[in-house]
């Protein structure tokens, strides 16, 4: 808004007179907008990534069922596993299944139990056999019961769990985080509008005398408002670009860190190009919001002048 004073020259002049006469980025406004845009873009990226992760994980997990064979004797366990596999293969609605190889199961358990099992020929500590089952729809209690009925006779040690059951808290947490990020974006938009409103009001005060002169010379509210709007537009565009740059640095470096984790859920949360488009739209929306706010504030205030 500081830059406004230097630019009232073009107040009414055609739109192409003196568009960039003064050094921009002078007042606090561009910086405020840069910070807002950066935070909004980061919150949005987080929300979008979470959304992608939730979507991908949900599709994956909804139809997921884990069959654990808790039989301690390895030979019995193996035969039950084969029998269970046969039974599952014959069932309707089972899209696929996979017996998790013993090595993978060992690796899963290793952090808790150590590597003792291999040395002792698998006798020391009983490790369950795992079968990862994919259904063609959500693993409803009915379908779990049906699997249970099918397996009971051939593999009495089978324990059947829907994967969504034990992932539910993780899901819920992700969904609340996503809601939080959406709320954050809305709050930041509100804060931006409020900041612009205050800046516009104070600029109106500063330039009251000139505005009055313009009015008395026959200038319209629109001509005055347009100048304020253009001024804040430049501030917002500059600040917005800066903020977006900052946000990209943060988002990309966070993404690199998550990549390093190699965790399935986070991989699925990778941003796709439409997400990047939305993020790039943040400074554009912020600029439009700022210009609209300035315009409405100024027009509202001018209505009270004669």
């Amino acid at each position, binding site marked *: 808004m500081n830059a406004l*004073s*230097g630019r*009232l*020259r073009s*107040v*009414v*002049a*055609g739109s192409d*007179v003196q568009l960039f006469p003064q050094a921009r980025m002078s007042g606090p406004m561009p910086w405020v907008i840069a910070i807002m845009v950066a935070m909004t873009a980061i919150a949005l990226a987080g929300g979008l990534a979470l959304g992608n992760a939730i979507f991908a994980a949900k599709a994956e997990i909804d139809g997921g069922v884990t069959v654990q064979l808790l039989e301690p004797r390895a030979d019995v366990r193996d035969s039950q596993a084969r029998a269970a596999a046969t039974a599952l293969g014959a069932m309707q609605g089972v899209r696929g299944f996979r017996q998790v190889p013993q090595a993978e199961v060992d690796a899963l358990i290793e952090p808790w139990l150590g590597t003792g099992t291999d040395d002792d020929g698998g006798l020391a500590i009983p490790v369950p056999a795992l079968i990862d089952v994919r259904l063609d729809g959500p693993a409803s209690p009915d379908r779990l019961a049906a699997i249970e009925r099918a397996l009971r006779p051939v593999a009495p040690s089978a324990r059947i769990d829907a994967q969504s059951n034990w992932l539910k808290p993780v899901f819920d947490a992700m969904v609340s985080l996503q809601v939080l990020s959406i709320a954050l974006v809305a709050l930041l938009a509100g804060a931006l509008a409020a900041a612009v409103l205050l800046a516009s009001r104070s600029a109106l005060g500063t330039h009251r*005398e*000139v505005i*009055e*002169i*313009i*009015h*008395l*010379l*026959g*200038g*319209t509210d629109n*001509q005055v408002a347009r100048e304020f709007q253009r001024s804040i537009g430049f501030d917002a565009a500059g600040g917005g670009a800066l903020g977006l740059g900052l946000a990209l640095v943060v988002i990309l470096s966070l993404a690199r860190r998550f990549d390093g984790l190699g965790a399935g859920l986070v991989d699925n949360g990778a941003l796709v190009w439409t997400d990047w488009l939305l993020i790039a739209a943040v400074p554009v929306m912020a600029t439009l919001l700022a210009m609209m706010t300035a315009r409405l504030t100024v027009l509202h205030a001018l*209505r009270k002048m*004669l």
Partner: protein
Amino acid sequence: MKADGEITHFDNVGLRYSTDREVLSDLSFTLYSGRFYFLTGASGAGKTSLLKLLYLAQRPSRGMIRMFGTDAITMPRSRLPQLRRRIGVVFQDFRLVPHLSAFDNVALPLRVAGHQERDIAGPVSDILEWVGLADRVDARPATLSGGEQQRVAIARAVIGQPAILVADEPTGNVDPDMALKLLRLFEMLNRQGTTVVVATHDLDLLRKVPDSLIMRLDKGRLSDPTGALRYPPRAPA
């Protein structure tokens, strides 16, 4: 009903700024096209206040004002700019825009009215030359003398060829020579058809424009020493 050649008509107009007494009371008069009016009265009599009503910078507290045939009290705010563009004002304190050059100050009314840049440069340069400021076009108001600022203000007031020129104590800040020069300038505009209203407390000035009509303000009330407010007004001598 708009009388022939009427510029403005005041009917029983009163003005109070806050809740105190009225600064202007019971003003009823008509100004006619093409005439030269002086508005006199002691300091504090209400001259500036009356002119503010005239150039639509102030709403009266009561009464009716008709400007160019339009009821200025009831008309929508959006019509104000069009009317104001037909009124040229030389403010008592000039009110130049401080960060604009003399050229841009004078160009302001044309830009406000939406003229193209190519149609602005010529007339603005001409009028600045006419008021003797050809060599100061790029100067900011702060670097101009009082008399120079006044001439910029006058140039700005007349650049849009207003139907009525309103000047508030235009000779207040200049030496007698310059005062006379400015007066001649107003007379010249008047001869070209512009209605002129000059507020002054300098009685000597009145005698220098023999054809002028005089309105006297005394404590916010008008008197009519020359019959200016009669209809038809006293014929110019």
